[in-house]
Structures are given as structure tokens and as C-alpha cells.
């Protein structure tokens, strides 16, 4: 018996990866019927792909890798596919020292996050092909690659926004409504930080520890996710405010096995501007 997959827009197949979670311009909702492939490439996507600043940020040794990723992305884009690209950091790699070393920031951004972006784009292209040829088993098989790599891209994009150099406000606890909400929901700032650190330290293997907002109940929660699962996999109503990467690559070169030391120190560069904006928007 043949399985007929409805020709749906991609977001239908990926309900857990909402545009709002991506902190990027919303994806164009491109119909996937072959006869409508001549859709103009969304201007934002093109700009992101070809961003000179992104290319300039890469060292000479990475130009080849970047060229490859950009070429593949451009090729996919020319087929009407939206592709994703590595966001720039709004600070230098060394700007978060001594809390997080420049070496870690560079590897984390240019290698790990870039690899998630590249593989996410690849998986989405393969998904589009599988849907187009009605290959349901292939579609299902691609879901884990999409979750790993798409989740990696989502999570790291939020993470970079959660960090800032000390002279730009990194380390300062939140004021205003989010600050009060932390006191209300956790008892005190100290109790909140302690809970985040305890959950982060206890996490086995790779994953993230989150401060999230349950937007249905307007309550703050501390949650962990495994591997690159986005926070929304723990609850459809959960909106990530602060995420701390506790994969070993996030701290190992500097802190080695002392994960608790990393967790203690990263608060010195955690920035609350993005979190406050999201919180205020959701709680309006």
C-alpha cells in the first residue's frame, strides 16, 4: 500500500521548530509542489547567507569551509529553499574572558555552531527531496538529524544573546518585571542561580540548563534538555529566556572536568537584555 504524504509546507512537519524560536526572520512558507519551484528567494535569507561581516569574522584557515557552506547554501537557496546561516557574535571572542576563554568561544562559534547550521541546511534539503518524491520512510528517518542540528542552531543562537562582556552589562542580574518574577518564583536571586547550577551539574551526558517561561501560566521554570533538544520539547508552552550550554565542548578546554566551576563563573557574563525583552513581550 502506497503512503501518500500530503504536500504540506515544511513547518507543518516540524511543529516543534517555530519561527519565533529561531530568533531569525520567519521562514518563507514555500509550497513544495514541483511546479511552483520558481519562488523568489526571500531577501533576508540571501543577505544572511552572503553577509560580508560573517565571512570577515572567519580566520583564513576557515575560508574554505565557509566557502563550501556558503556555496551549498547558495545552491539550495537558488532552488527556492530557505537556508540558515551562522549568526555573528555581537562581541569579540576574547570579550568574555576570564569567564569563558577566547579559544573556547572561537571553537564553539566557528566549528560547533557552524557545523549545526551546515548539517541543518543539508537535512532540510534532503527532507524537501524526500517529501517531493513521497518517500515517507526517508522523511521520518531525517527527523533526528533535523532535531539534532536544528536544535543545535536554535539553542546556540539564543546562547550567544545570553552572553555579554562585563563592560556591556554582562553579569548584572535582571531588573524590572523579570527580576521581580525571579524573586517571586524562586524565592531569591541566589536561590534561582543555585537551582540552575545544581540542575546543570547533575545533568548526565550532554545538554542544556534553561530558565524558561511557561507562557500559559506566566510562571518561570528551570528545566534541562538532553543533547540539542530545544526547550519546547519539554513543554509546548515553554519559552527559553536563558540557556546555559553544558556540553563538554562549552567548557572543557578551560575548566576540564570541573563543570561546577564553569557554572559558577559563567554568571559573570550572563546578560539579561534579550531575556527581559522576551519576557516582557510574552507577559504583556
Amino acid at each position, binding site marked *: 500500500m502506497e503512503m501518500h504524504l500530503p504536500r504540506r509546507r515544511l513547518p507543518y512537519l516540524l511543529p516543534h521548530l517555530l519561527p519565533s524560536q529561531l530568533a531569525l526572520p520567519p521562514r518563507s512558507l514555500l509550497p513544495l509542489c514541483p511546479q511552483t519551484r520558481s519562488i523568489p528567494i526571500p531577501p533576508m535569507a540571501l543577505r544572511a547567507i552572503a553577509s560580508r561581516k560573517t565571512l570577515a569574522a572567519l580566520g583564513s584557515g576557515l575560508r574554505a569551509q565557509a566557502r563550501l557552506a556558503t556555496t551549498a547554501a547558495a545552491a539550495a537557496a537558488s532552488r527556492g529553499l530557505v537556508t540558515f546561516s551562522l549568526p555573528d557574535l555581537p562581541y569579540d571572542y576574547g570579550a568574555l574572558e576570564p569567564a569563558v576563554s577566547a579559544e573556547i568561544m572561537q571553537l564553539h562559534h566557528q566549528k560547533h555552531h557552524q557545523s549545526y547550521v551546515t548539517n541543518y541546511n543539508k537535512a532540510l534539503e534532503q527532507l524537501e527531496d524526500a517529501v517531493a518524491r513521497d518517500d515517507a520512510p526517508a522523511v521520518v528517518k531525517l527527523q533526528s538529524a533535523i532535531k539534532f542540528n536544528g536544535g543545535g542552531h536554535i539553542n546556540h543562537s539564543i546562547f550567544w544573546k545570553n552572553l555579554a562582556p562585563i563592560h556591556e552589562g554582562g553579569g548584572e542580574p535582571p531588573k524590572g518585571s523579570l527580576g521581580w518574577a525571579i524573586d517571586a518564583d524562586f524565592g531569591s536571586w541566589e536561590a534561582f542561580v543555585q537551582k540552575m547550577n545544581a540542575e546543570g551539574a547533575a545533568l548526565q551526558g550532554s545538554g542544556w540548563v534553561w530558565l524558561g517561561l511557561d507562557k500559559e501560566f506566566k510562571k518561570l521554570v528551570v528545566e534541562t534538555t*538532553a543533547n540539542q533538544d530545544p526547550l519546547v520539547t519539554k513543554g509546548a508552552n515553554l519559552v527559553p529566556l536563558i540557556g546555559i550550554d553544558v556540553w*563538554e565542548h562549552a567548557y572543557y578546554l578551560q575548566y576540564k572536568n570541573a563543570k561546577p566551576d564553569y557554572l559558577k563563573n559563567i554568571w559573570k557574563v550572563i546578560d539579561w537584555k534579550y531575556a527581559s525583552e522576551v519576557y516582557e513581550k510574552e507577559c504583556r
Partner: protein
Amino acid sequence: MATATVAATAPLSNGFLLRRGPNEGAKSARSLQRTKNQRQSASSRRFGAAVITAKFDLKPPPYPLNALEPHMSANTLSFHWGKHHRAYVDNLNKQIVGTELEAKSLEDIVIQTYNDGDLLPPFNNAAQIWNHDFFWESMKPGGGGKPSGELLKLIERDFGSFEKLCEELRAAAATQFGSGWAWLAFNPRPSDGKELLVVKSPNAVNPLVLGYIPLLTIDVWEHAYYLDYQNRRPDYISIFMEKLVSWDAVSAKLEVAKAQAA
């Protein structure tokens, strides 16, 4: 390359993918092969008013910490064995004090606390002790090369060729997302006659919990390779296969496995 999710009789809370030779789809054997009950050395020492009974010891690798240079640095060994492995031992000893697990062998603790996938707290520490003991034994100075004898025969029977086995092992190690391990394991009751299989597992899970007998493992937690290779896991895997793997150890374990299965 075909993959099959394990159709275990109990749901696994962690995904567990099998990579097999050309003919795949064997039902997993749920029988649990127990090795001889290992008597761990028990030493007591007084610490203030409390008596601490150290149940398990931190076993050193069968070579000095710098013996695997330059492929795996002494620096890595000093943290990986000296800190990570040591912490699993210390933490398990604390966890099992005053419990029924104190009287059991490490392997029995691993299987019991796996609890059909609903992991009990001591599982991570127990399994990671077991896995790391096994990992150090899977390597040797001047390792690499090819297996021989009975092991090579079985590899060629079940994978087609040694090269095909290497391909599957590398792929399993490279695609185990997040933290985990890749294994060559022995299935004592294969329904399709293939006794050797490649398995990958997340975090602390190992093939013992499926009733397989591990023969070889490579640790792909980031702490295993990050100091030497940073994000380049594929390079680490290549070096492991070309310069570190101890096929002698694998052959020895295969002999034991076959004797037990007989």
C-alpha cells in the same frame, strides 16, 4: 549501511541503534550473560568517627599514562582516568553504602540499576566505571593494525571484510550524537547466525544491558578527545582505529565470550 532500532522486550528510555552487516533485523537476545562474579577488593579505613568501606577501586590502565602519546596525550589520560573515571568510582562507592548493591559485582549493579531502561541513580556511575575499565583495555601502545585468527575469520563472516567492520565502527562512533560509546559486541544467541555486531550507545549505556558481550569500545564523550582533537571527532576516531586499538585484547575477549556461550 542499514540500521535497526533495537526491538528489545523492554522499552529503552535511551535510543539504542544497532548497525549490522548486510543482513540485518535480528531480534535482540534478552538473556543476560554474567561473567564470573568479580570480588572487588574491599578495604576499610577510619575517617574520624565514621568507617568508610571502599567497595570498588579505581583500576589503572594496563600501561603508563603517557604510553599512548602522541595519539592520546598523557594530559588527556591524567584527566580522563585521574579525574572522570576516579569520580565515577568515588561517587558509586558513596551511593551504594548501606544498600543491597554493596554485596554485588560491578556488572550485576550495572544490569540491576539499568532497570529495563528506567535508570536508577547508581547506573550512571556503575556503568561508566565498567565502560572506562573496558576502554583502557581496548587500547594499547603501538596499537592499530589488523586482527588475525579466529577474530578475523568471524569479522569476515559477519561483516564481509575487515574494512567493512572499520567503516561501520567509525560511522557508529561519528554519528552517536551527544555523549556515548561505539562498540564491537558478541551476541551469544543470534537469530541470524551473526555473532558479531557494531552497536552505539548514549551516555553510560552499554551492550551488557542487552545481553551482549562487549569486545571493543571507543569513548566518544567529548572529554575523551577534546584536549587533543577539539571538535574533530572523526580525526580522533581514525587515530583510534589506526594507532590505538588493541586487537589482541579483542581476540582474548572473544575467546572468553565464545567459551561462555558454549
